[in-house]
């Protein structure tokens, strides 16, 4: 079993005329790589009618519905996160309830509000009620504000994780930009934070350092946008890990933190 815990799909209201081809490309490449499950979200309209990292409730509602359609169309391969914007608290909670009833398996938070802001607490409490992990977009060591997002780094996400010790947090894409060494220090002693290995970065030494920092029991293989770099990291993990530890990173840890039966 090979679970990509950080995947994305597209839909017809994102302004991407090639959205069906992009969705199909992910599924086809995933089959070549041996991916058995894509756990995915759609961030609103991907900037078409509201900003990618500040999606409007209308765009999120549509995107989550499209995510559920994809899950229904590919029941063996696709699982959905409920993407929410915590600035719109009532809508976020309603989307999580709806998503849970319709078979979605986690919560996706992008960069609409700093991770340690109290507005995220009700979202995390809802995740705890349903046994959902929370996948949180992270900028590895945010030294300043970045345009187009209210990014958070590992220190800020770990503050949130300490307030919600029964929730598993997936710290997104340590290969996705920024200084992952800072993230490894931040997350080392926060056991309910797991690191996803996705992102376009395939820095030499990153996998070894992540293993030293948190061990194979808190790493999750993933791709995010670039499947080819995920594939490279999968091969490198095969070189670095024995079969038992490799199985943890590629599926065992995901099966532990997502709701029971999510990958049956």
């Amino acid at each position: 079993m090979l679970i990509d815990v950080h995947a994305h799909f597209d839909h017809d209201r994102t302004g991407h005329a090639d959205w069906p081809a992009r969705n199909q490309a992910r599924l086809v490449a995933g089959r070549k790589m041996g991916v058995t499950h894509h756990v995915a979200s759609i961030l609103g309209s991907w900037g078409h009618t509201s900003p990618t990292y500040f999606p409007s409730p209308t765009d999120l509602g549509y995107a989550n519905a499209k995510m559920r359609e994809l899950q229904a169309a590919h029941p063996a391969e696709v699982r959905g996160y409920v993407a929410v914007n915590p600035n719109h608290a009532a809508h976020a909670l309603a989307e999580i309830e709806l998503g849970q009833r319709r078979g979605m398996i986690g919560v996706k938070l992008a960069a609409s509000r700093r991770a340690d802001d109290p507005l995220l607490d009700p979202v995390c409490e809802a995740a705890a009620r349903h046994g959902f992990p929370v996948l949180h977009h992270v900028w590895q060591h945010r030294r300043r504000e970045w345009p187009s997002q209210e990014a958070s780094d590992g220190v800020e996400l770990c503050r949130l994780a300490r307030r919600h010790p029964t929730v598993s947090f997936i710290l997104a894409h340590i290969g996705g930009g920024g200084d992952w060494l800072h993230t490894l220090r931040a997350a080392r002693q926060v056991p309910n934070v797991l690191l996803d290995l996705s992102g376009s970065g395939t820095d030499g030494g990153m996998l070894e350092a992540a293993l030293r920092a948190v061990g194979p029991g808190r790493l999750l293989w993933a791709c995010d946008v670039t499947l080819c770099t995920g594939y490279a990291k999968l091969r490198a993990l095969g070189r670095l890990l024995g079969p038992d530890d490799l199985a943890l990173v590629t599926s065992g840890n995901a099966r532990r933190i997502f709701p029971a039966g999510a990958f049956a």
Partner: protein
Amino acid sequence: MIDVNVFLGAYPWRRIPGTSPEAVLRAMDAVGVATAWVTHLPSLYWKDPAEGNPWLYEVASREPRFRPVPVVHPGLPHWEDDLQEAAERHAVAVRADPGPLALAPTGVDMLRLLGAAAEVGLPVQAAVRLEDGRGRHPLDVAPELAPWVVRAWIRSHPRLRLVITHAERSFIEEVHWGSTPDEAARIWWDISWVWGPPEEHLALLLATMGPARFLLGSGQPLRLAETPGARLDLLDLAPDARAAITHDNARRLDPHAPEPR
């Protein structure tokens, strides 16, 4: 396979495992790379990069799977001697990365080196970047290579050949389609920074530019040795196109390459 983008030696900005020649050879074996074009990485940051070249030549003389790409700094006195030595020692290329060497990218020194390398028949290699700009050390502020620089370089001498590594799709397209066919035919690009599905940047570039312009390159050990092979394996490439990228194009650039294993 021939990996045209490999480094030996320590990196100044963070710990990198596997930088020794022996470790790089093991990594090459793990991914099926027979030959690597190698640069002494510290040389890119030393005040006199040529101080690293004797070690590089010595390593390459002991291990024929390494083809040396020495650094030549055209701002230093008698740099022409370093270029001449590279030619005499059958280096596969020389490199002068304006960012880390703090050279004006289209200044007199750089253009002199490009012209001289063209005259002795050595390709010039340069990296757009070595790391993602978002993750660099706060003191690592060397500017990245820009597409206009590469366009200026290739126009500077009619026989100059360039090998540009770590370039993304938009960079490659800006240079390729902003050059005459003759100019574009003298530039080769490695695939270390060109994304596969679902963006399909590599598939698009191969469809629009053809496989003759591309080389397999990883940037290892700063980047995973597995990356370019994984990228190619996600494409449905014809065998001759794959062979062009993995070794045929590189062999044509290297008349002194060892025989394939």
